[in-house]
């Protein structure tokens, strides 16, 4: 192909596309037209053949009779009948000699065929034959057979000119269509090429600019075909190229810089570094000049195999193995070798090696950096020892801090937690990693965090430690009290680096202090009231006793009434002193085994009436509630007092729930309540009343404290308190303003039934002293005389003493059956006297009489005396009964 044509063709995709499509059209259309024409031609030729042969055969058949009859007219008629046969050029009947019997040109009839082609008819082949078959003419001859004997020939010549013309027309049309198709194809190709190559041209334009160095150019082809994808990928590629170029430039710059640095570095390597490279056989190819400083050799002296100056140290074997790995292209960690200095000293070198690759990725050399670490190793060994020592000390310190129950933590000056001890970690319920770098604002409520911050700011200002006590509610809502010390830790130059805080949970201590103060307060009150009540009881005892004696001796009914009134008044006074004594622990007890569920169930009606109908009462009782050792009367009084308080707290109505449960208190729980650990029955009273503030809660058990003004005696809750304490139980109150109050009472589970008093079994009407000797000891003359009078009038012989010493004197000289002694006496009290009597006079029965009893100082062997204490003021019947019971057991 001429060069210019070749250039013209190959230089444009559009032209190639156009030519391609045109060529495809041309080829396909040409093939189509050719095939069509050929088929048409073949078909038409065949048709023509068949028609011609058919015509000749028809003529032969039809003309047989005429030929036989030599009926030229008939023959002519037959030929004439074919005049309208399309394209018939000639038709003839000839006999076996070639004589024309009939012909389209009548003038030739009778002549003989003479041309060579015609004579072929008589070539011996007696079947129909085609004499001429061309594009313009077909000449066939068919034998006229009669009884298989050829009597002549029918021959026709049919022109194929029209057929040829038709074929030519078809061919010409085909060519025209082909040309049109080519032109249309070219047009289509041109349009398509333009559309396709437009995108390509745009891409080329972009690429030209990129080749020129532009990088900010973009080729945005808004199409969804491959060109669109190509432009998208092109842009991505361009971005990548741009990035890569930038990276390459940066890398080159970095590389250049690095090379300069390396060069500088190598030239200026300090006395402990050697930079080297060696070939794959291990022979050094380069050694930095610093080798002289490090190992004493010159570079040329050391240009041997790398292990030439290795010592026998086993670490060198590993080093050799590493080097082999590097030589094979592997990465290895830094390793150590021991080599010999020129002066014979052993030196440790730390070697960092890497393989060098060529462009095909083949290892061609090894390069490395060796550092003399001999001194470092020595230092490191020393350092390791120091470090181990430090770590031991650190562990010890940590153990000490973690063993401290107080919560300790430390922060930086920004308030971020740096560390803490175990106690603090447990308190905060976070791990050290969770706490690290957190501040108070991340861990605590805002109020506390700000309080801490203010404390820390104050320390920063003053540099002083800060002590404070704070109350914090834990996650269960329980308020805990902490004593907190916040201090700072400083650098040697005095700069504060952070804060240290130590917190001690003093909640239990404070509670015990409160209880102790309450207890002391109650004790003081108790002593006061006890003292008053005692003296008052004594007076009442005289009044009641003598009134009874008077009543017994009077015969005048009217005067008896007067003395009975005196007795009643005295008993009312006794009740009052009983109430006074009730809130203290000094009241005597009539305890026995009870199940408080039964008492509550029985008293439910009374409780409901006390609370009134506006308050709904509900019992939530543990069905398997343990039994208790309680004074039932005191228990009922306590329940009543609590109900009255609840009723006053719910003026508009509400709910009141009484709940019983078996509970087991641990040591810590019991300790908080100042009771012994173990099994308890917990009795709770919950109301939905107005609640109490803290101040009221602190005073609620104080005698004479009332929120009801003049309407209350202020002794109700005091009585409850005294009752619970006598029962060795515990009481606490939870209350919230406008939410309600819960009063919880804890009573020890009764483990073993105790012996009940026998006094109730005695028949009082037939009591008689029978001359039994009773010693009455009382420092109150009136009471002594009263008791003597009552006893002697009942048949007892009575001795009197005003003190314990006088009583002992009487006992030394008389056989006494029973001693009736007051408890509270100067010098020696009734218990002390009883203890002496039991030692010296073990057969003597003893009854103590008192308004109250100090439980703490009673010896266990004298507990029976307390259990059988005669309560003042006592009636004559009570006295006689008690004496009779004692003497009955004797």
């Amino acid at each position: 192909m001429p060069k210019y044509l070749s250039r013209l063709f190959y230089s444009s995709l559009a032209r190639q596309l156009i030519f391609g499509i045109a060529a495809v059209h041309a080829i396909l259309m040409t093939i189509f037209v050719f095939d069509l024409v050929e088929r048409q031609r073949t078909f038409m030729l065949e048709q023509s053949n068949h028609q011609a042969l058919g015509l000749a055969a028809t003529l032969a058949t039809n003309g047989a009779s005429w030929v036989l009859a030599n009926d030229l007219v008939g023959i002519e008629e037959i030929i004439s009948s074919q005049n309208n046969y399309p394209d018939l050029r000639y038709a003839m009947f000839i006999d076996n000699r070639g004589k024309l019997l009939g012909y389209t040109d009548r003038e030739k009839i009778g002549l003989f065929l003479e041309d060579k082609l015609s004579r072929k008819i008589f070539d011996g082949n007696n079947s129909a034959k085609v004499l001429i078959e061309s594009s313009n003419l077909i000449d066939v001859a068919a034998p006229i057979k009669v009884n298989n004997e050829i009597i002549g020939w029918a021959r026709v010549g049919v022109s194929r000119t029209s057929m040829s013309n038709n074929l030519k027309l078809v061919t010409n049309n085909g060519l025209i269509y082909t040309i049109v198709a080519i032109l249309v194809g070219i047009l289509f190709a041109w349009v398509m090429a333009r559309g396709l190559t437009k995108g390509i041209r745009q891409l080329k334009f972009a690429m030209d600019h990129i080749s020129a160095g532009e990088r900010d150019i973009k080729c945005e082809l808004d199409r969804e075909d491959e060109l669109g994808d190509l432009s998208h990928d092109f842009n991505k590629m361009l971005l990548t190229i741009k990035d890569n170029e930038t990276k390459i430039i940066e890398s080159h710059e970095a590389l250049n810089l690095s090379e300069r640095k390396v060069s500088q570095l190598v030239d200026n390597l300090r006395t402990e570094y050697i930079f080297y490279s060696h070939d794959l056989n291990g022979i050094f190819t380069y050694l930095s000049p610093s080798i002289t400083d490090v190992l004493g050799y010159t570079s040329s002296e050391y240009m041997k195999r790398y292990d030439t100056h290795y010592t026998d140290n086993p670490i060198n074997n590993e080093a050799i193995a590493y080097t082999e790995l590097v030589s094979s292209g592997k990465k290895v960690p830094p390793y150590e070798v021991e080599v010999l200095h020129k002066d014979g000293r052993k030196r440790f070198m730390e070697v960092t090696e890497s393989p060098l690759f060529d462009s095909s990725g083949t290892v061609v050399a090894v390069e490395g950096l060796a550092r003399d670490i001999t001194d470092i190793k020595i230092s490191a060994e020393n350092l390791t020892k120091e470090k181990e020592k430090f770590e031991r000390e650190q562990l010890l310190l940590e153990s000490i801090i973690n063993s401290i129950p107080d919560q300790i933590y430390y922060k930086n000056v920004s308030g971020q937690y740096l560390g803490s001890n175990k106690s603090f970690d447990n308190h905060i319920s976070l791990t050290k990693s969770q706490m690290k770098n957190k501040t108070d604002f991340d861990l605590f409520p805002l109020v506390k965090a700000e309080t801490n911050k203010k404390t820390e700011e104050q320390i920063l200002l003053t540099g002083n430690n800060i002590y404070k006590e704070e109350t914090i509610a834990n996650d269960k809502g329980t308020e805990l009290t902490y004593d907190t010390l916040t201090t700072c830790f400083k650098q040697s130059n005095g700069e504060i680096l952070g804060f240290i805080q130590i917190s001690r949970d003093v909640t239990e201590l404070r509670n015990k202090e409160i209880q102790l103060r309450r207890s002391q307060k109650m004790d003081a009150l108790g002593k006061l009231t006890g003292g008053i009540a005692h003296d008052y009881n004594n007076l009442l005892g005289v009044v009641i006793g003598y009134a009874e004696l008077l009543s017994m001796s009077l015969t005048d009914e009217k005067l008896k009434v007067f003395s009975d009134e005196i007795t009643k008044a005295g008993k009312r006074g006794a009740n009052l002193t009983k109430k006074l004594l009730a809130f203290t622990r000094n009241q005597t007890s009539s305890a026995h085994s009870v199940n408080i569920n039964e008492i509550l169930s029985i008293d439910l009606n009374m409780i409901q009436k006390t609370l009134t109908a506006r308050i709904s009462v509900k019992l939530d009782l543990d069905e398997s509630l343990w039994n208790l050792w309680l004074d039932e009367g005191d228990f009922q009084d306590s329940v009543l007092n609590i109900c009255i308080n609840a009723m006053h707290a719910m003026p508009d109505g509400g709910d009141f729930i009484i709940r019983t449960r078996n509970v087991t208190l641990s040591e810590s729980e019991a300790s908080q309540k100042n009771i012994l650990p173990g099994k308890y029955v917990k009795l709770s009273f919950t109301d939905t009343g107005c609640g109490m503030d803290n101040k009221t809660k602190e005073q609620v058990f104080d005698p004479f404290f009332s929120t009801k003004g003049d309407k209350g005696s202020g002794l109700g809750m005091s009585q409850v308190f005294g009752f619970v304490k006598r029962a060795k139980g515990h009481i606490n109150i939870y209350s919230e303003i406008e939410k309600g109050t819960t009063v919880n009472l804890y009573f020890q589970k009764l483990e073993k039934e105790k012996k009940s008093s026998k006094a109730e079994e005695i028949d009082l009407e037939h009591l008689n002293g029978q001359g039994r000797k009773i010693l009455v000891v009382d420092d109150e003359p009136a009471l002594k005389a009263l008791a003597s009078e009552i006893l002697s009038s009942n048949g007892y012989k009575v001795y009197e003493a005003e003190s314990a010493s006088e009583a002992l004197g009487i006992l030394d000289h008389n056989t006494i059956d029973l001693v009736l002694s007051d408890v509270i006496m100067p010098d020696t009290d009734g218990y002390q006297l009883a203890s002496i009597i039991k030692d010296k006079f073990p057969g003597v029965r003893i009854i103590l009489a008192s308004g109250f009893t100090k439980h703490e100082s009673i010896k266990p062997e004298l507990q029976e005396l307390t259990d059988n204490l005669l309560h003042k003021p006592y009636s004559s019947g009570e006295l006689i009964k008690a004496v009779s019971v004692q003497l009955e057991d004797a």
Partner: protein
Amino acid sequence: MPFIPQVYRIYSICLSIIFITLLSACSSNEDESSYQPSFSSQTDTSSDIEYIFGVHPLHNPQRLHEVFSPLMQYLSKHIQGASFKLEASRNYAFYDKKLYAQKFDFALPNPFQTVNSLEKGYQVFGKMGDDHNFRGIILVRKDSSIKNISDLKGKIVSYPAPTALAATMMPQYYIQTHGLNVMKDVDNRYVGSQESSIMNVFLKHSVAGATWPLPWLSLSRERPELVDQLEVKWQTEPLPNNSLVAKTSIPKKLVSEVSSLLFNLHSTAEGKTILERMELSAFEKANNNTYDPVIVFLEKFSKEVRSIK
């Protein structure tokens, strides 16, 4: 070489081949397009003289050829310098025309045509034997109701041709002489050939068909169903059979040779075979006078039945 340019190169080659082929296909042979057969007036190059032997339409041309071609071959074979070509005629009229125009050198006309040919330059030199067969027969279907000649009244009767002596004239004279005015009482149909006359009866196109024994025997042999369904109801008296005539211009020697061969056919196996095909026992001598009875009949027929001119 890059792939795409290579493809285009291949395209170019293909295109060239295709175009060349197209061009070649478009060309044509001019010589043959203008061909026309050429003729000459050369006479027969053969040394033999061809004599036309015209046999009257005893049968259709193909049948005639079948029957008489062996005779022509026999004569051609046994007479040197002469070849005999059988010429049939499409019908009696054409045969008459050709005969009377002396188209035939030799002819085998029927007796009527024989009589007429005597005036047209022919002479009788022989005849077919078996005169007893030269009679007219009238065939009817066996299942037809035609019992008497009178039953033909108003019916169609088929005949070969008006001038067929034995097959037409003699039966017509019979009908005429047996009670009917054949020209008025009967629908006479001239169907062209003996076979056609017989087939007309078989196919019930006519109630009766006239022919003479030889064609009836020949056709019935070929088609047995004709014998099963048709019967010869009436037959006429015989007359001299078909004659052998020659143009008076034919050399006597030739006529004599032909006569000799024909009259001795019955004595050779080959000749017997030929005669058997013709349903003829022999040819025999005859002359013009042999056909005087025919002349008499023709006169009576012309007078009593119809004109035969």
